[in-house]
């Protein structure tokens, strides 16, 4: 990686060009050899469903139904490709943009919107999906991921001798997060403890408006070199390469050989959030360049070229996507307002006198109003 910058495409592991042509990679090719056409169609469908949900959420925000939305547009391959490797007892610590990973972990995607409609801060049971709630503080979850990985190791789930039973943690972070102290500490703790964790770094090239060149002078994967951690840079929009690299990394971590960092170079096609305006800091030429390298388009081109994208399949996926959009909209419309007493729930696991006092005060206060909940 000597001499190249943090946005360089040089040396990226690639198995599918942006024009949809399969290419070889000596080291990681073997990890994709057994992918069937069905597998590829499955990748395509999962990426399409993620995008359909994501687009619907963006529309809902623009129609005034969500306070905010954080679009995953353009990063589908990085997410579907990596998540397609996961099985139980693997555990995922996402940041807040991993809707494709959530989809793969069995989260009913519309549920994510409860948070963005302001109903609650976390909308699924992490233990049921082995998928932690979204963490809004940049990089804070990376330390949790390392501790969790250490605990998996203590529980005998790592390098047990039975590879099928082993597990590891995947921690998704972004380019901006690599500057955070917590993330660097996580790399250190993971390395010295030989923790079974894969740091999956989606370098989508922007931390809001700041290019990755403001976070680093060298490729981000080199951070891992600093702590002696295995690492690789992959074309994040090439779902096949992402899948292959993640398979290698997870096998490594699950076996007890230690942590790995995967840097997936991708592009945040949308804005940071719906409050952002990318026209202020990037050019349409830049966007056009990366639109040509769209993850879904290139797989589509490939499958079409090899005659593995029949019309009926395309139609059925289109119908599924339309249904996903409709279901998302209807779900958001249907959720009743959370009752006010929820403010006081679950502050602690055991009763706490101050919380109880405040709750009692609030109940009494609310009861004095003519329009109190339940007073109608």
């Amino acid at each position: 990686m000597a001499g190249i910058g943090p946005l360089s495409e040089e040396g990226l592991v690639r198995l599918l060009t942006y024009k949809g042509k399969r290419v070889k990679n000596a080291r990681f090719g073997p990890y994709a050899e057994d992918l069937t056409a069905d597998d590829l169609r499955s990748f395509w469908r999962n990426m399409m469903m993620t995008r359909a949900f994501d687009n619907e959420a963006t529309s809902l925000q623009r129609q005034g139904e969500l306070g905010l939305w954080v679009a995953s547009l353009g990063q589908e391959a990085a997410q579907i490709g990596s998540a397609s490797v996961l099985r139980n007892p693997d555990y995922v610590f996402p940041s807040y943009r991993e809707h494709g990973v959530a989809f793969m972990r069995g989260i009913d995607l519309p549920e994510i919107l409860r948070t963005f409609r302001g109903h609650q801060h976390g909308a699924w049971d992490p233990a049921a999906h082995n998928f932690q709630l979204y963490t809004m503080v940049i990089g804070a979850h990376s330390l949790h991921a390392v501790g969790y990985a250490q605990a998996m190791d203590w529980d005998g789930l790592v390098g047990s001798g039975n590879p099928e039973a082993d597990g590891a943690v995947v921690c998704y972070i972004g380019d901006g997060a690599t500057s955070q102290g917590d993330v660097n500490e996580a790399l250190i703790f993971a390395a010295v403890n030989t923790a079974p964790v894969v740091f999956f770094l989606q370098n989508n090239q922007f931390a809001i408006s700041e290019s990755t060149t403001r976070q680093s002078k060298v490729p981000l994967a080199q951070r891992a070199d600093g702590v002696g951690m295995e690492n690789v840079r992959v074309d994040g929009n090439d779902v096949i390469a992402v899948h292959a690299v993640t398979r290698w990394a997870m096998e490594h971590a699950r076996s007890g050989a230690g942590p790995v960092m995967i840097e997936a170079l991708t592009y945040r096609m949308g804005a940071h959030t719906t409050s952002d305006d990318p026209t202020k800091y990037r050019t349409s030429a830049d966007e056009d360049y990366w639109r040509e390298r769209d993850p879904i388009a290139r797989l589509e081109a490939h499958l079409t070229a090899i005659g593995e994208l029949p019309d009926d399949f395309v139609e059925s996926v289109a119908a599924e996507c339309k249904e996903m959009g409709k279901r998302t909209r209807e779900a958001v419309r249907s959720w009743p307002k959370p009752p006010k007493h929820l403010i006081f729930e679950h502050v602690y696991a055991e009763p706490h006198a101050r919380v109880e006092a405040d709750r009692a005060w609030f109940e009494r206060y609310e009861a004095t109003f003519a329009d109190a909940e339940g007073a109608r």
Partner: protein
Amino acid sequence: MPKFQNFPLPDAGEGLTEADVVTWRVAVGDKVEINQPLVEIETAKSLVELPCPVDGIVTELVAREGDTVEVGSPICVFDIDPDGPPAPEGKEPEVADPPPFADHANDAPAPVEKPVASSAPVEQEGSGAVLVGYGVKADVVHRRPRNVEVVEQIGGVGDTEYPVLAKPPVRKLAKELGVDLTTINPSGPGGLVTRGDVEQKVKATSAQTLATYANDDQPWLETGYSNDDGRSTRVPVKSVRKRTAEAMVQSAFTAPHVTEFLTVDVSETMNLVAKLKADRDFADVRVTPLLLVAKALLLAVRRHPEVNASWDDTKQEIVYKHYVNLGIAASTPRGLVVPNIKDAHRLPLHALATELQHLTAEARSGRISPARMADGTITITNVGALGIDTGTPILNPGEAAILAFGAIRQMPWVHDGEIQIRWVTQLALSFDHRLVDGELGARLLFDVGRVMNNPAHGLVWA
């Protein structure tokens, strides 16, 4: 039937309040689908494309390209049931707001005084209910209406309940006065001992001491407080007593008072009183010697108008009044006051009697107005009503003379060269020696005496 629904401008960027409409991507009459590009707007943060929220037909573009629109104002109208049957003749349905999502279904605004445009949720005062994505919460400008029954039931909207003994300032007072709070029957809400309770207790304690050597009916002690051993009571000087004291001091210590006395045989006046009492014309008024004295004084003042004046020390001027407002000193339940009869010099006897009667009634009931007491020019004080012979009255401030009219007694008197029993009274005139010298005062007094002695003399002067 067509179903018209508007599209209020959403908040596209976490707290924006308005946006400019840049380019419409649709035209009136276009069929539209959910999420198709509808309009491009420019906010403070960026250029944003809004996707269409409904399936239907565009029926109106409310905001034009270039307009600045507030978040929450409708920008266009759709017919969301275009394939339904047409509306009946002349019955175009109204434009509705988009139906709220389930979590805002009950966000009806609190009742407000004036009707509010249904298409602008953000403009509703006091509702506080704003849809997600509709910007900063509007200021709440009315208090949320309370459920009175519940409030009464829980005993107020105050914070916490506690058994209240007494507030710190009251505790301090109790300590100073040596009162044990726990022995007091509290009169405040929830058993609170009030300041009044403490003071009451102090008085109650001391009243028992007084009762041993006086009866309990001593209204002048009412507003006072006794000292610790109950042997004296301090009453704050207030209102009437205060004003009287001030007037007395002012008068007594500014005007040099001289008093002259005259003893008069008023038997003829008493005869006249008897006659007037029997007179039909005076049947409706009270006729008293005081009435005749008043008349006598008025006649005397007419002959010596220079006593009807006031010494203005500030300006170093004597103010001669060309009217007589005759004051009659009165003892009322609230203390001594001097109401006056305005323009008494003009009043014939009957009218004077009527006025006197009114004045007496007012005094008795304590209903004397400040106007009644203002601008007196000369005063009579009827000490005789209390059985007193005479006195040295103090001038009413602002006046130059005051006549004390004593009790009328049957006395041995020399009449027609013989000692007879006659009705005799004493008149005393105090005057301000700065503007009334002894001779003037004497003449005035003598004239009053003359009329009282021989009422017919009034005819001579009239």
